[in-house]
């Protein structure tokens, strides 16, 4: 399968994400420029973290008008898999592919730290390599990660099991203390109702190699690979020799 990582002016996790997908997960990965109109035949689009357009107006508010995002929107509406990480999550919310919005962290601080998130729903294309209730240790780095949705929408999200990750403590308890940014319901990541679009604030690409202190983030990428490669026959034979890329 082939991943595509979208680059906006101000993206700063694009190469980290690209590196993990290509060199750690060993899958073909393309960089997609926001002004292009071509998704280059990718099976999964990843919107990386960063500060697209300097976070001007609102986080993710300008990026959604990029030419490529119109393609991404159509791709997602047709069932294509889209993963939004941090700023990518904010863009998906602004684009309307995911419900809700982000407001400033409750303590008004830019939070850059490791957090723990619990897998709430292991039956998604983004989590099937994990276990229900599994606690992942993954870093966050954001100013606006305080998830908000009107009460009616929130109820709807919970009813359809769209909450995929919640902030928790080391034992997996959902506590107010673990809810570092003040998100409603400790929400760290949600999917759309159809299940092909996921957004999360933590950065799995920063927790995919033991050298960086945690490999828990690989669960998400491994799940996607599992889901997408099982769904359809590989278009090309798996090339195992494609190992050296550093």
């Amino acid at each position, binding site marked *: 399968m082939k991943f595509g990582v979208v680059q906006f002016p101000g993206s700063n996790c694009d190469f980290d994400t690209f590196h993990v997908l290509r060199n750690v997960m060993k899958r073909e990965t393309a960089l997609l420029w926001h002004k292009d109109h071509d998704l280059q035949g990718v099976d999964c689009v990843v919107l990386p973290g960063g500060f697209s357009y300097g976070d001007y107006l609102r986080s993710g508010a300008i990026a959604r008008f990029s030419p490529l995002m119109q393609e991404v929107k159509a791709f997602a509406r047709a069932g294509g898999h889209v993963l939004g990480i941090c700023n990518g999550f904010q863009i998906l919310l602004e684009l309307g592919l995911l419900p809700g919005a982000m*407001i*400033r962290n409750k303590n*008004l601080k830019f939070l850059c730290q490791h957090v723990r998130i619990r897998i709430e729903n292991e039956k998604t294309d983004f989590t099937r390599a994990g276990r229900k209730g599994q606690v992942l240790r993954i870093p966050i780095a954001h100013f606006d990660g305080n998830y*908000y949705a009107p009460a009616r929408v929130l109820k709807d999200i919970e009813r359809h099991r769209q909450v995929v990750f919640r902030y928790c403590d080391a034992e997996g308890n959902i506590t107010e203390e673990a809810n570092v940014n003040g998100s409603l319901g400790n929400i760290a990541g949600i999917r759309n109702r159809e299940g092909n679009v996921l957004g999360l604030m933590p950065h799995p690409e920063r927790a995919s190699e033991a050298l960086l202190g945690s490999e828990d983030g690989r669960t998400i990428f491994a799940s996607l690979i599992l889901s997408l490669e099982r769904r359809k026959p590989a278009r090309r034979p798996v090339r195992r020799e494609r190992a050296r890329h550093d």
Partner: protein
Amino acid sequence: MKVRILVSFKDSVLDPQGQTVKNALHTLGYAAVKDVRQGKVFELELEGATKKEAETLVPEIARRVLANPIIEKFDWQIIKDR
């Protein structure tokens, strides 16, 4: 024509920045300040638009771009007629 658009959080949405400003004002002794809501102001210069056209155009721009209708509301007025 020049219009001014004010975007602010809906009453139902917590405004942590406004809260912080309020706390600072209280620290300074302004006990009369009961609440603070922070917002954004945009001034748009419109060319060749009539007042009637502005009444359609401005709310459309505010809804689509300037405000996020999930968390924000907006208000606008004409500040220069021509």
